[in-house]
């Protein structure tokens, strides 16, 4: 179902997670997890509730600092990512429970995603004239292209707090895209959506990957969606990686079957 053009660029490692462990007090959220995210692919991280999926994303973009291990992004290794460095380095994300500015319009929310790209200082921004204006127009055009891409023109001027949940998810994706990320992290992009919204969202994720060549790592509960969407799947269970491979390989993996069917853990 994928076009060949997207696969050609795939292969090179964009981000490597190496032997990462994270614990909160006595609770071990992640234990020696290692995997790669390769350029141009869609990678899904799945696992039962409490497997450490969101913790993993939080480590990648620097919300959590792991106690041990290494993260190598674009060839640069560090023990812990910082959110600011992650954003500047080209990692954007969306959140499981949405983190939009509810009182602001769709347009303003997505414009907010351009903040890091703004070059003019605070003073120029304030008087909105000359170079700052030229810059704003340029950014607005980029944002309008995203609005067109995500088909949300009709809600451009509506405060996001008034939108249906599925649309809010789409706006959040828009804001992440506004950062022109190299790596896009999606935390349960389809949680709480109905079938039609899920299909739409899947379409957009595929289009983003194909059209902009953006590398995507996503967490998802809906296994059917994951298998259709992703090139590779990493399975976590109780903070450990139990499988890593193509959807077909993962589907046949005994450890995965055991984790999902809920056999008693000895």
């Amino acid at each position: 179902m994928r076009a060949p053009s997207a696969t050609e660029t795939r292969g090179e490692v964009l981000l490597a997670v190496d032997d990462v462990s994270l614990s909160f007090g006595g609770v071990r959220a992640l234990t020696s997890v290692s995997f790669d995210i390769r350029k141009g692919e869609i990678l899904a991280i799945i696992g039962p509730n409490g497997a450490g999926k969101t913790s993993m994303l939080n480590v990648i973009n620097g919300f959590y600092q792991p106690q041990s291990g290494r993260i190598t992004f674009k060839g640069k290794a560090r023990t812990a990512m910082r959110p600011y460095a992650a954003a500047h380095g080209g990692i954007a994300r969306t959140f499981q429970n949405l983190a939009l500015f509810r009182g602001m319009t769709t347009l303003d929310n997505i414009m907010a995603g351009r903040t890091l790209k703004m070059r003019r200082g605070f003073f120029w921004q304030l008087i909105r004239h000359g170079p700052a204006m030229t810059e704003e127009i340029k950014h607005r055009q980029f944002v309008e292209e995203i609005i067109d891409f995500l088909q949300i023109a009709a809600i451009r001027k509506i405060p996001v707090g008034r939108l249906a949940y599925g649309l809010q998810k789409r706006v959040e994706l828009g804001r992440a895209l506004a950062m022109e990320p190299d790596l896009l992290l999606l935390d349960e992009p389809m949680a709480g959506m109905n079938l039609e919204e899920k299909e739409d969202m899947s379409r957009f994720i595929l289009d983003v990957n194909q059209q902009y060549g953006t590398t995507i790592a996503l967490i998802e509960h809906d296994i059917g969606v994951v298998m259709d969407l992703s090139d590779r799947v990493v399975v976590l269970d109780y903070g450990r990686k139990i499988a890593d491979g193509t959807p077909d390989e993962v589907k046949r993996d005994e450890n995965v079957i055991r984790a999902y069917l809920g056999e008693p853990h000895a």
Partner: protein
Amino acid sequence: MQSSEFALNTVPKLLIHNAATIGRRPAMRHKDLGIWRAWTWAAMLDEVRAFSIGLAELGIERGDKFAIIGGNRPRLYWAICAGQALGAVPVPIYADAVADEMAYVLGHAEVKLAVAEDQEQVDKIIAISDRLPQLTRVIYDEPRGLQDYDHTRLISFADVQRLGRKKLANDRTCLQQWEAGVAAGKGSDLAVILYTSGTTGRSKGVMLTYDNTIISARNANAFDRLDQNEEVIAYLPLAWIGDHIFSYVQSYAAGYCVNCPETPDTVLDDRREIGTTYAFAPPRVYENLLTLTMVRMADAGPLQRKMFDFFISFARRWGEKILDGEPVPLHARLIYGLGEFLVYGPLKNRFGLSRIRVGYTAGEAIGPEIFRFYRALGINLKQLYGQTEASVYVTAQPDGEIDAETVGRASPDVELKISETGEVLFRSPGVFVGYYKDPEKTAEVRTPDGWVHTGDAGFFDAKTGHLKIIDRAKDVGRLEDGTLFAPKYIENKLKFYPNVREAVAVGDGRDFVCAMVNIDLTAVSSWAERNNVVYGSYQELAGHPLVYDMIARHVDEVNKSLSQEEIMAGAQIRRFLVLPKELDADDGELTRTQKVRRGFIADRYASLIDGLYSGASEADISTEITFDDGRKGIISARVAIRDMRPYPAPAAAVATGRAA
């Protein structure tokens, strides 16, 4: 180019004329990436010419048919004109047509080339292309998602224009040749083939010449004094005659500007930004606007609601009189003025109708209450009766002679008569040439001396002299006891209620009248939210006992109003049910212009109709539905049936009934 009126007998000639005379006035606008982009007549000529010459390079010749498939985008309108400039014949196709329907029209019209809006339409064409050997090229407007497609037969709109521009630059005689080609066009040439959605059977290709469309457009412009200062918004299907005349031919003839909305969902906002002065819409559009307003008002605070209710009822009493220039007491004028400031003005602004000079409703009968609502606000809404076979205009209401239940007088140059069976016939310069490749059907509809059977039953209103349409002639029936049964008349009364989206009345040859009702999801779900009614699906909501109670109240009010009309009193609704699914054009239940296909529905829901007449308290239905992507599924449901108590007929009617 000669500029005498007489020679301007084709649309491409009008384009060249407009570019020369009003070249710097706006001809078209399109909202793209949030910004209105405008083209002047001169700029539009440049775009159309480049595309036209590009088409010629691709091998399009005089007499070839080409399809236009998509929404209201400038490039698709340009494509129509560009093809016409070469003497080719455009065949616009409904953008929401499923692949099978499209295959039929493309095959029947022997389309050689198609101009499609985007990937969605291109995919549909590709899916049916093995059935269409004569279709050799597909041009697309929006490149998104199409980069990786095989481009041996596919080419982008921009690339075709590039071909044209290159040819223009390299070949000095090219421009002259192209202009000579336009000049060679005659008024009697075939201008367009429009496939009517048809309430029965396969669609038919209505052939219209430039003489048909341009004379009709000029008459309409003169009738309402439309000039180059008008602003209209194009949002109706390109394949509908209304849009073809109103957003295309009339614009070229008067020189006014056509605005293309950003997306179909943004029409309301886009219309407000433009402030259209002339509007043309089927009743459904006005109904939806009103429903949306009523829903929003139900959610508004008590003060706003009181204010709204007071001024709306005041407007209902005085607004139309003020609009028609009748004498009105001073205090009424003053309060109406205050209402204009507080309610009517803001409301019209919301609707995008602040600057409206003339608004038409056409395509179907509009509910009198809805019609009066808009007029009460001071909007000059008028009725029009038209047909594809007439290049739209058959009758229209002149300013100041408005009646909610008539469709007006014969339009300029139109002759009207009523046949012995009560059917309306007309004859005019707009009368079509014939149905494409179907002389038999043509002969059925058009008499040798040029009269066209409309298929509608009507009569001239004694009081106003206007034409009044009751229903489709074939739909008007009789109950078993001989009582007149006009289904649409009853359905329209039901559809006035915002909670009712669609209704189907049955009763021809039966003992009494029954109705099947479709709820309006927007209105009813908002009502459900306010009344703590919990539901999981459309089907569940439609079957909810409280929803039935609500619909029963509406049916009761309809019965009451029917009982007050002598000829309709016997046709009150005795039993009704709420349909578990929305009637949908994809399932063939509605036409592409959203008219109910009664015969089809009667077959499809036969088990429900049996239930209605068997006296059962519920009925089962299992039927196939088509999803947007063309997949099919089965929906089954048990539907409850309610009995209604009819009102006694007026005394006179009962007496004559007994006497007979």
